[in-house]
Every structure is written in structure tokens, then in C-alpha cells.
């Protein structure tokens, strides 16, 4: 079985290509440009273990997008990477939509650790579901 999949969502192509380059060697990684493409990808190629998304995007923000994805695959672990953390997101962590909130800029090593934690969280959820 291949490694569980991670989807990275951002409306900024530069961020996506950078993450692919940086994290592609360590993780089973895919990217989607913007929330609409991301939802399509999840529908056709899902489920994903972890979705790491930008917050401010056109059409739909990262939190709303994660909430929609959770309807399709409840085990998916959501992460938001944002330039500005507001109260709304802090509440979402409590509500369970969000596993972690990461502030930009986030050092790469720290990002790797968080992704590992998110993957472990996914395994745990899947284990519970299977059991």
C-alpha cells in the first residue's frame, strides 16, 4: 500500500510549486489550484488523508472548503496555512473541522512535523473506524 495522500490547496501557483519541490520527496503529495479544483480532485481521486489549504481564496475560503470535504470523507485531517489567524479559525479547531492552524511563514521543518502529526491523526481515525 502506498503512503496516504496529502492534498495541498492554494490559489497561488508559486506556493504550490514550491511545496511540491520541497515536500514531494518526503510525502505522497498532490496539489490543487484553488478550492473548486480541490473539491473536484477530492471527488475523483479521494479520499485524501490530509488536506493543507490556504485560508483566503476566491469563491470559497479554506475553512468552508474543508467543511465540504469532511462531508465526503470524514476522516480527512484538515490543516490551514494562513497569513493571519483570526478568531473564526480558533473556533474551528474546537469544532473539529480543523486539526491545526499554521501561520505563514512556517519553517519547512516545522511544516514537515505537522504533516507527520496530521498523518498519524488520520491513521488513528481510520484505525478507530476499522475497529
Amino acid at each position, binding site marked *: 500500500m502506498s503512503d496516504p495522500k496529502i492534498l495541498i490547496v492554494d490559489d*497561488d501557483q*508559486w*506556493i504550490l510549486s*514550491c*511545496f511540491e*519541490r*520541497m515536500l514531494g520527496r518526503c510525502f505522497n503529495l498532490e496539489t490543487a489550484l484553488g478550492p473548486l479544483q480541490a473539491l473536484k480532485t477530492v471527488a475523483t481521486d479521494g479520499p485524501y488523508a490530509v488536506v493543507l489549504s*490556504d485560508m*483566503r481564496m476566491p469563491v470559497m475560503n479554506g475553512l468552508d472548503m474543508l467543511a465540504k470535504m469532511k462531508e465526503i470523507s470524514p476522516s480527512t485531517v484538515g490543516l490551514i*496555512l*494562513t*497569513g*493571519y489567524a483570526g478568531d473564526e479559525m480558533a473556533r474551528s479547531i474546537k469544532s473539529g473541522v480543523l486539526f491545526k492552524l499554521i*501561520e*505563514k*511563514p*512556517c*519553517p*519547512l521543518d516545522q511544516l514537515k512535523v505537522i504533516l507527520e502529526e496530521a498523518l498519524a491523526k488520520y491513521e488513528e481515525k481510520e484505525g478507530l473506524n476499522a475497529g
Partner: protein
Amino acid sequence: MRVLVAEDDHVSRLMLQATLKKWGHDPVVTCDGQEALSILEQDSSPELAILDWMMPAIDGLEVCRRIRQKSTSMPVYIILLTAKTQREDLIAGLGAGADDYITKPFNHQELYARLQVGFRVADLQRKLADRVKDLEIALTRLGRLQQAQKLEALGQMASGVAHEINTPIQYVGDNIRFLQDSWAELRPFLEPQPGKPDLDYLIREVPKAIAESNHGIQRVGTIVRAMRDFAHPPGINKVHSDINHAILTTITVATSRIKGVDVETSLDPQLPKTLCFPGEIQQVLLNLIINAAQAIGENPEKGVIRIATSTYRNCIEIHVSDNGPGIAYEHQEKIFQPFFTTKEVGKGSGQGLAIAYSVVVQQHNGRIWFDSESGKGTTFHIRLPIDGIGSAESEYLEGVNL
């Protein structure tokens, strides 16, 4: 209405006293000019005075002159009582600052009529003074409101900018890191080759270019973080804040506005977290730092701003010093007043220290004061109760200049 009567002639004084009482007034009586002067210098002194011209020591004319030299918000209406009827005398009396005169022996009806004029003017003056006071209060509020709106707009802009810049910082930083790691992996396969001096050059310079780029992007990150921390809108509740951190953030924000002036810090590493509105405290610190830099002014390369923190009983203290020329003695008692500024028109709003005072004293139950020595510089002290509630009032005994 209280009326001051200064008359050395016994009979005349008693008559005036009785007449005024009969008309329902409250006469304050004295027989010499010196006492009249000291009564008029008191707060809530009579609004109208009848002064005899001829009195021993200080005469009525001199009382007029001296009282007019002092500027009070509520000037007294003065009727000079005189036996002198020459035109030159009357002109001299009015010139000395009397509002009206009445000649002795006085006629009751005339005195009554002239007193009515005086009361009418005094009444108008009182109303005017009240209006002026209301206007001053309204202006102060308006100034604070404008400042608050400006800060809010600035805060929104700063967090928006911070948000936008953080995205490129993320990928530029990560890409630099990638280049650094890649270079480390590639480097063993690169050997200097004879006849290819360029390769030698690249082996030497590429790591430096990467390291310097890394340094640059870290610096941009620090600035943006400081800007965002600074602009973070003040919450409804006070939070336990690291004042040392707030100081360092503020210095980063202030750097561009205090070009050339060194900032030295001596921060107490044991400083306890203090319950406060950190954004407001940072605004106060920014005002003090910018004022300090402006005080140093002419010779920035010789100027030093020193910022220190310490603990004092149940309070923390922040000290901001400059080695500028000091605050002129005549300005010292005015500097916390709104709209007071020594800067050129358009350079300063005169609100900085007034806001500092309001934030420290009203919002935080703290104290703000200063020491200033001509030619040596000025130190502002801020004392804040650690628990955010207890007053710093009782702890505040020495070095106070308010």
C-alpha cells in the same frame, strides 16, 4: 452675587456693605488693596469688585493693573470708586484695567444701574467661559477619536499587508532553503578545474548568496511580524503580556522613523507578564520613542535612546531615556495636555503624550512621569500594576512631575 468691596474709608465701606446687602448681594469686605488682591487671586473669587482708588499701600489703580496682568478664565468686573473727576483720572483708571467707575459721593440709583451693567457682563463672561470649556473638552474628544480611527485604519491596513506579504515570504524562504540543501548535495560533485576560474568563483560565492538571501527574507519576516503584532486590534479584555517583547516589537516598527539614532535596551529577563492592552502600550512606547528621537533631533549619530524595564513592588516599570536637550522648564507642566506641542505646525498633533497619559493612567491604573535635565536629556517612566487592577497610585511617591 458675591461682590468684593475694598474701601479704606470706614463710613463709606459700611454704607456700601449695607446697600449691597439690602439689594440681596453677598459683599466681601476689605479695607486694603493687598487683601483685595489676594481675595481676587483665589479660586471662585467674586465676579465683581468695587475698588476705592485711594487706599494705603496698594491703591485701587494698582490692584486693577496687577489683576489684569494675570490671565484667568473668568476675569473680574471692576468698578473703580473715586473722588477724582478729572477726565485724565478717569482715562488713567480705565487704562489700568477698570471696567467702569463711579464718583464719590455716590448716588444709590447710579450705583444700582452700574452694578446691573457689571452683573450682565459678568454673567456673559461666565457663560462664555463655560462654552469655551465645553469646546475644549469636545476638541479633546474629537482629537482622540480621530487618532483612534486613524490607528484602526492603520491596523487594518497593516494586517492586510502582513497577510499578503506572508505568502511570498513562505515560498521565497522555502525555495532558498531548497537551494541551500540542494547546494549541499551538489557540492561534493564540484571540483575546481584548471582553466575554469569561474567555477572556483561560483563554489565560493553561491553559498554566500544563499545565506545572504536567507538573512534578508528572515528580516522581512521579522518586520512583517512586528507590524502585524503592532496592528493587532486591541481586544475587549486585557491579556497577560510580555512587555519586553512588546518593547522589541515597537523598536522594530519605530526603526524607520528614528533613522540614525541608536536604541539600547536593558530589559529585565525576570519581568513578570503584565495584564494590559498590549496594542495600546505599544502605541505609548512608539510615541515615547519617536518623541525621544525628535528630542535628539539635530545630531542623530550622537543620540542614544535607552529603554529599560524593571519590577517595583506589585508593578513593572518601563523607562525611556534620551540624551537630547531636555524639556524646557516652562513646558514641563503642559506636556501631557492635549494639543500641546512644541513642534512646527503640521509636524506634531500634540496628542502623543496626552494619549500616553490616558492609556497609562485611565486604562491601566498606572502612572507616567518624567525627569528632565537641561542639556542632559529626559527620561519617561511608566509604572503598570502587574495584575492590571491594583493602582500604581500608592506606590508613586518620588520623582513625580505631574
